[in-house]
């Protein structure tokens, strides 16, 4: 920190909105506010864009996660706490990641390429071609800064390491070799039923009663065999919990929502003529998305300052209303509204009796079961899990890997053609919902052991939150033993690719809130951004109830662009 250049002074010092953190929701709100002609200051203590939604190099990744894994009080404010006009409250950060475990089995190989990686912090994530985020990118103009490629296929995995192609489209059903003729007919007819129902076709109607019953009951009623039910529930509508076990299911999908998801998926296939299937992924990683919105905001006049920690919150002495923030440079900046990254909290002084007018506002959404976390795992390999294919998704439905597995596990392999890693390497992202860290770890290990050869962990460097102080240097330390043991096993054992590097961590889920101050949500456990975007739009409307969220422009700026995104084939 000490060798950083002195903080530049910011001018002007008063804004309509200050946004701290450049995660996706913050970036979208910043861009939307600028589009609504608000003056916006967008700050980020990190030297990169994206916060919890960023894509980082192999060196930045551990340090970011480590820094976010423990609570810390902000460094004391450079100026006196007692200001004559304001009450000053110091920010502190809360731990959002736990059980961080990064292992580098091949430091020599990886460290020379460390900068060539763009590792998603919130992986695995993809876009459905027809989902809300794509529409938002097109509407906002952010799409012009992004480029995408198709995900080649989706598979359903089992505990033997087999990957079964998910027949998700007409062409895929036709081509599929594992489905029987009758199953093909049933599956396609079901797709058509849903499409016909949504298109309001004559004589094709799903009854109101069915629409409000559980989707799984409807699938049973349609006589779909278990295999097809699995495809639809876990690989297309992407439910997290086993739908037929009421005891464990926490996200029972209604038919209405199920067919909406299915229709979204179907509409995604063929929305863009050069996309292979329903799913696409941005070149250079998911972090590009936040950046694209920031660039969009900057074009509209947003002021950006990175590497700028914010130390305290300034409140009106008299009525307790928010006034501004104090930066690490000591400068005080004022604004009408403030949005902060979920990492920050403001511990109220004990016994404070400050009036909090904003507290009257309702939370953005009912808080999720706070016991639930997202277990995330990342592995780097030199061989694809599936020969001849580099980018694909694998879903492990509940109980497919071990009997106590309650939630579905999703794994996304991304190859070097998406510029997320050096040539001939692959990055695997794994995620699943879990109740606690132990359960999360068990899930991640079971996937990794099913698909990968993991070198003996004795050789690895283990970084937990407790050891976090030494983690940064520790992980880059070369361990000669580990290096040699890797070379000996560099050829895949039992035909499975070997893990060169792995990171396991549990991420807290916060849904964002509008209370005393507005905070944005953490990445959720989903594969797509739809829910996050809904929350973000809500947040925007909470702070600007009278403004339209990215109004349709009649300017020539993006008029020629009637809904195509840049898709490489």
């Amino acid at each position, binding site marked *: 920190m000490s060798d950083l250049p002195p903080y530049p002074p910011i001018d002007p010092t008063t804004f309509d909105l200050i946004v701290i953190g450049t995660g996706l929701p913050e970036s979208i709100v910043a861009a939307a506010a600028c589009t609504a002609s608000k003056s916006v200051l967008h700050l980020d203590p990190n030297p990169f864009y994206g916060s919890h939604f960023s894509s980082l190099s192999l060196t930045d990744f551990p340090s970011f996660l480590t820094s976010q894994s423990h609570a810390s009080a902000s460094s004391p404010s450079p100026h006196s706490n007692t200001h004559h006009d304001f009450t000053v409250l110091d920010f502190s950060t809360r731990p959002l990641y736990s059980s961080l475990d990064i292992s580098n089995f091949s430091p020599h190989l990886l460290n020379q390429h460390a900068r060539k990686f763009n590792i998603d912090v919130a992986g695995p994530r993809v876009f459905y071609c027809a989902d809300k985020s794509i529409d938002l990118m097109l509407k906002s103009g952010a799409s012009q800064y992004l480029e995408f490629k198709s995900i080649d296929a989706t598979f359903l995995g089992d505990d033997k390491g087999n990957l079964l192609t998910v027949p998700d489209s*007409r*062409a895929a059903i*036709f*081509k599929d070799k594992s489905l029987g*003729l009758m199953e093909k*007919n049933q599956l396609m007819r079901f797709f058509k039923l849903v499409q016909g129902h949504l298109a309001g076709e004559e004589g094709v109607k799903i009854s109101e009663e069915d629409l409000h019953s559980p989707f799984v009951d409807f699938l049973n009623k349609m006589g779909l065999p278990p295999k097809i039910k699995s495809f639809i529930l876990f690989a297309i509508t992407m439910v997290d919990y086993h739908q037929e076990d009421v005891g464990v299911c926490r996200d029972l999908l209604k038919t209405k929502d199920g067919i909406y998801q299915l229709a979204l998926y179907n509409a995604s296939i063929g929305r863009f003529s050069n996309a292979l299937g329903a799913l696409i992924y941005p070149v250079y990683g998911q972090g590009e998305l936040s950046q694209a919105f920031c660039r969009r905001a900057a074009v509209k006049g947003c002021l950006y300052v990175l590497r700028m920690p914010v130390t305290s919150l300034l409140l009106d002495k008299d009525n307790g209303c928010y006034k501004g923030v104090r930066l690490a440079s000591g400068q005080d900046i004022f604004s009408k509204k403030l949005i902060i990254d979920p990492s920050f909290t403001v511990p109220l002084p004990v016994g404070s009796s400050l009036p909090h007018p904003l507290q009257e506002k309702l939370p953005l959404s009912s808080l999720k079961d706070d016991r639930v976390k997202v277990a995330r795992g990342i592995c780097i390999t030199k061989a694809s899990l599936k020969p001849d294919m580099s980018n694909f998704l694998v879903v492990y439905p509940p109980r497919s890997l071990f009997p106590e597995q309650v939630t579905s596990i999703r794994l996304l392999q991304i190859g070097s053609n998406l510029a997320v890693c050096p040539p001939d390497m692959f990055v695997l992202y794994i995620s699943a919902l879990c109740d606690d860290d132990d359960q999360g770890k068990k899930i991640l290990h079971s996937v990794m052991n099913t698909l990968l050869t993991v070198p003996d962990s004795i050789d690895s460097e283990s970084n937990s939150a407790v050891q976090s102080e030494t983690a940064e240097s520790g992980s880059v330390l070369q361990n000669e033993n580990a290096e040699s043991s890797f070379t000996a096993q560099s050829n895949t054992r039992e035909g499975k690719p070997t893990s060169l590097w792995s990171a396991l961590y549990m991420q807290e889920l916060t849904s964002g809130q509008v209370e005393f101050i507005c905070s944005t949500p953490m990445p959720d456990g989903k594969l797509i951004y739809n829910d996050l975007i809904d929350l973000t739009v809500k947040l925007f409307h909470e702070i600007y109830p009278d403004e339209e969220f990215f109004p349709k422009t009649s300017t020539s700026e993006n008029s020629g662009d009637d809904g195509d995104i840049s898709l490489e084939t």
Partner: protein
Amino acid sequence: MHGRPRKAPKPEDEAASAAKAQKLRALQTQFFSYHHNKIYTKEAVELSAKLLDINPESYTAWNYRKLAVEHCLSQPDSDADSAKFILDHELRVVESALRQNFKSYGAWHHRKWVISKGHSSIDNELRLLDKFQKADSRNFHAWNYRRFVAESMNRSEQDELKYTEDMIYTNFSNYSAWHNRSVLLSTLLEKKAEGFLSKEKVLPEEYEFIHQAIFTDPDDQSGWFYHLWLLDQTVKADSPLLISSWPAHGSDVQLVDRCHNNSAFSPFTTLHSDSGSFPIVLYFNQPVEGVSSSTVTVESGFNKSEDLVWEPVSVSNSQAAKVWVTHLKFPTSELHFPVEVSVGHSKGITSARGSQYSFSSVFSFKVHVQPIKKDSSQGSVAESFLWGEENFKVYGIQSEESIPILSFDQLSIRNDPEPTVSDWRAEALSKEIECFRELLSLMDCKIGKLTLARLLMAYDAMSFSCANKLSHSEVLELYSDLMKLDPSHYQYYKDEHNLVVLKQVTSSRESLLKHCFQYTNSVPLTIYSPICLRLNNLSLSRMGAFEELLWVQMLDLSHNELQSIEGLEAMQLLSCLSLRNNKLRSFTALDPLRKLKSLRVLDISYNHIGEHFIDTTRYLCASPLSHSVGSEWNKDETVIGDVALINYWDAFLIFKELNLKQLDILGNAIADEKFKSVLVKIMPALKRLDGELLG
């Protein structure tokens, strides 16, 4: 590209197209003046390019460019390099026209023409095609051109087959790709290329492939087209086959006069002949050519095989026919002699597609001649044949009276032993049947039902000698369902339904006997047959099962819904026919009767002949304007009395060739006095018209 609704043009579009038309007219005037004056200067040729750029459909402009190219190439200073330059320029013009409209016939044709000149690189063409086929994978122009290019560059059929597969995997709703696949497979099978030695190996794999498409989306038609082609490939016998004959194998034919005391013979095989000859009829499973005294040997005591003349029985006067007939002379004295007919011992009988008749078949029968006594029945010349119900009695009653009926199987012949090639076909069909029964158990699907019905009938036809005959009721039920489900194709289903009914009727001795009646009235001299097949009141819209009915001499088809009697020419022995109360609309619909030389009694009363001013069948059938009947239509005969025959040419063509004794025509719009007088003149031998004795 496909399945997009057409939108009404916006005003600005109309303005744009008006401006385009304006520009086009100006260009066109200039272009025609160049064209007429044969001006092929650079400027003139450029102008045609401009014209084509706006309107790629301008055939004249393409032709002009061809002339211009020929002109340039014929210049004395033209060499290979300049030719290549000129032709490459043509390719660019075509390409730009195709960008305007990639379905322009003229442009694609011009490209073919240029490439055929042989100066241009053909490799580039595949790249171009890939672009066009990506833009629209169902563009049949591109597919057509692709076949041309593939052939020109000697690209292997296997590679092209793989290409169709790739296209089908991208989107199986692609008629062109499936079609090309059928073309390529036909070629490969014909060539007997490696891996394509026999249908037996290739077709089951293709069935497997097409099932994926059909089951995934039964509503998509393209797959069904290919399935139909496969079915045709499976069913179609490569070589023609004799499936039935008259007289049947092992039968005793009795040639007699009116006395039928001799109860030793079946009335089914008793024939009256006043010409000293009797017919031998061969019925093949498909039209064949080359039936002659050299390909068919007839061993009998009285005729030299080589003297026999075999005639094709075909309405269209073509040399290919399913039915062939010859007439065997017999002596007038009482005699019994055996006849043996061998078909296909020497080569020469071929199908329309050129396959040889390859299974030699022999059938034999015995002929018993009883001399005709001329005296007794002279007076009965005018006796009329009455179709009334009271004149018939069920033949079954008499069958108890120890009249031996030949075993039904002997009414028609079967080639024995059964050719073994059909094993895999039967197996393929039964697999298909299982498959589609399963599909229909899952969902209601019209084309699925139709396919299953076709499969069942094909299987039925194939397993004729086997004991495992299918019950026809499943097929009948399928067609009944289809008539309800798909009323717009009602008539087709009804016709098919009829054919099955007729198959059912003729499938066993018992069921057929139910329709066999004995004529109890006294029979006119010219007719000797106690047995009348009565298929009346069955609401038949189509006649069929002819191969089982070659023996029929008296046929009652009254009170049906017949609009056509297509195929009836096969019943060469027919002497009495009632078509009363049907839906025949014209004389051209009676065309098959011209081939029935034995027909003496005809009832076409109460039909719709003459009711419809426009006879739609005329467009489909032979008329004096078409060559097939031109020779029979003599201009000199066009007036009989004061009646212009030209008004009744269709009736003339039918009746002139018939030797009718009795005709009933009342109840038709056309049957007025004037017409009747014409009929009497056309047929001097006619004895009774509408029941009235003629003088």
